[in-house]
């Protein structure tokens, strides 16, 4: 048995974390359990943003838009068919009758988000560098305006509330494992190497026969799928959805997690998400106790700027510190 085999490491980590979670669920109070769930959701979101921004070097800020799409889709699909006509009288009748269980609804939410990514990716991904960032901000604002105004489906600024609290720590953990596994498989495959080569030098990548447009769209869509799932989990964790939640602030928070951890590193995103969420939660009682609202945000923004100045690659750079040997066994090399 080779201890540097990544799968053994992943399985071990999964088992250890499962055991810890099993213990935590019994030992810890609800407050801390909720914080742990937020940490998990942020890990899903940061890791999926890392898939887009870190691997491919596309700088998308539109992640909350995909979250919103996934979240609203999941919420509408799981909405109890008995309550729906009262609550959302203008909803199209085919949607009214649908009441799904959680897992398929999450997957459909993710798929809808990914499909949206395909559609908007075709025009927007033609933009480069920070213009792409600006384009995705525009997309985020447009999604926000649509959510606020399409009140027959989304109830507008009131939002959807009273959603069933399906999300628990195990659902979140399942998706954390899935998103980390998928990222890992992508990063250490010819597919991921194509993405990374694009980040390093687009022209050289294109000369090697990499289809840039295809890679960009796939990176955006895979990221969007998990963002959609994360949105669904989020919706059923706090049991309410309002358009304002999915703001540029949230996008900024996710970017902070990825940049602090090191864009391109899966471990980095996970650690970034944990640091970020716990900082926010540690400061919450201080903010409320002393009426110092905004302290946590100021400090996090400061942290971001300091990291950008002194350690622009983030904590982990693009590396995965444990597990995989730096020269992995490349299976797909025997192409001829």
């Amino acid at each position, binding site marked *: 048995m080779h201890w540097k085999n990544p799968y053994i490491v992943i399985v071990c980590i999964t088992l250890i974390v499962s055991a810890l979670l099993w213990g935590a669920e019994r030992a810890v109070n609800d407050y801390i359990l909720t914080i742990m769930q937020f940490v998990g959701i942020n890990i899903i979101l940061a890791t999926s943003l890392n898939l887009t921004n870190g691997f491919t070097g596309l700088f998308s800020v539109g992640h909350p838009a995909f979250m919103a799409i996934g979240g609203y889709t999941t919420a509408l699909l799981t909405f109890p068919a008995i309550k729906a006509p009262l609550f959302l009288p203008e909803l199209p009748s085919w949607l009214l009758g649908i009441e799904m269980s959680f897992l398929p609804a999450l997957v459909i939410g993710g798929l809808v988000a990914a499909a949206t990514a395909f559609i908007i990716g075709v025009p927007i991904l033609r933009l480069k560098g920070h213009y792409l960032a600006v384009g995705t901000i525009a997309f985020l*604002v447009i999604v926000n305006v649509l959510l606020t105004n399409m009140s027959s489906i989304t109830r507008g600024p009131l939002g959807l509330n009273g959603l069933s609290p399906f999300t628990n720590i195990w659902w979140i953990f399942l998706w954390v494992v899935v998103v980390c596994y998928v990222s890992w498989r992508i990063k250490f495959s010819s597919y991921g190497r194509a993405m990374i080569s694009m980040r390093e030098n687009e022209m050289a990548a294109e000369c090697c026969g990499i289809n840039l447009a295809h890679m960009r769209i796939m990176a955006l869509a895979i990221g969007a799928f998990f963002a959609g799932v994360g949105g669904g989990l989020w919706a059923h964790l706090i049991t309410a959805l309002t358009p304002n939640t999915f703001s540029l602030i949230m996008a900024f928070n996710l970017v902070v997690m990825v940049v602090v951890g090191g864009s391109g590193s899966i471990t980095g995103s996970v650690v970034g998400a944990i640091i970020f969420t716990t900082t926010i939660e540690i400061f919450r009682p201080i903010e409320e106790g002393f009426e110092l609202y905004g302290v946590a945000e100021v400090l996090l923004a400061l942290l971001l700027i300091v990291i950008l100045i002194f350690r622009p690659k983030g904590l982990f750079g693009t590396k995965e510190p444990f597990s995989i040997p730096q020269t992995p066994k490349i299976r797909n090399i025997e192409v001829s």
Partner: protein
Amino acid sequence: MNFEYIAQQLINGLILGSLYALVAVGFSMIYGIIRLINFAHGEIIMIGAFTTLGLLSTLGLPFWLVIPAVILVCAGTGIIIEKAAFRPMRGAPQVTGFIASLGVSIMLQNLGILLLTAQPRNFSIPAYAQKTVKIGSVTCQLIDIVIIITAPLFMVMLMVIVNKTRLGRGMRATAENLDVARLMGVNVNRTIALTFAFGAGLAGFAGLMWGGKFGQIDPLMGFVPGLKSFIAAVIGGVGSIPGAILGSYLLGMAEIWFVGFLPPVYSSYRDAFVFGLLIIVLLILPNGLLGKNIEERA
């Protein structure tokens, strides 16, 4: 829809366009000189508005003194932001600066919330500035006229500085090529700091006018106007000052007309319209109306 209504909408468009122009020029200059999309620029509007409020209501300074004071304070803020955040990461990839500017923006917003609370405040300018004036059959406030007249004045002053003075020549040289400008004896750091100062000063003045026009200010007020001014700069061609001015007036007019002349159902889609316009302009005319082709954008 009669003549007065149309004239009124035209004037509203001009006002909005003037305010955007004051901010967009700064965006455009900063982008031109160090290729940085400076999202923190919008927050200067907020700082300008709150400085005005502080000086006018708390210290009770006369209005004519407040205007230069606000411009100076904001110019100073611009220099500090440049020195603290952007100078240390000069030469880093463009996206790094962009993320940092988002960080500065969020930090300023939250500092505002922390120090001033998120509660919106009433902003009162002296009564004589609010007096209504009748031009023909159109009524507007004195401050509207002040905005419409002073904004172009500031633009002209800025263009004279950029095109005719030694400092302006330094700015243009730095924008063209930073290293070569340094070799030619331009003090690049000072030039860039002054560019931030000019941009921030104008944005601060825009903040003063914004507060005077709309009457309420809060720590988050600068973000959306900042974004829209940026869009105006993109429409005109980022990096070009005349382009930024043209883009601002076009965007101001388009936004007002979108709300004023279409059925009211659409008016809540105003932001979607503006940002949709941005995507379309970026894709079809990546260099904007008057921009030069500096680099690949799309």
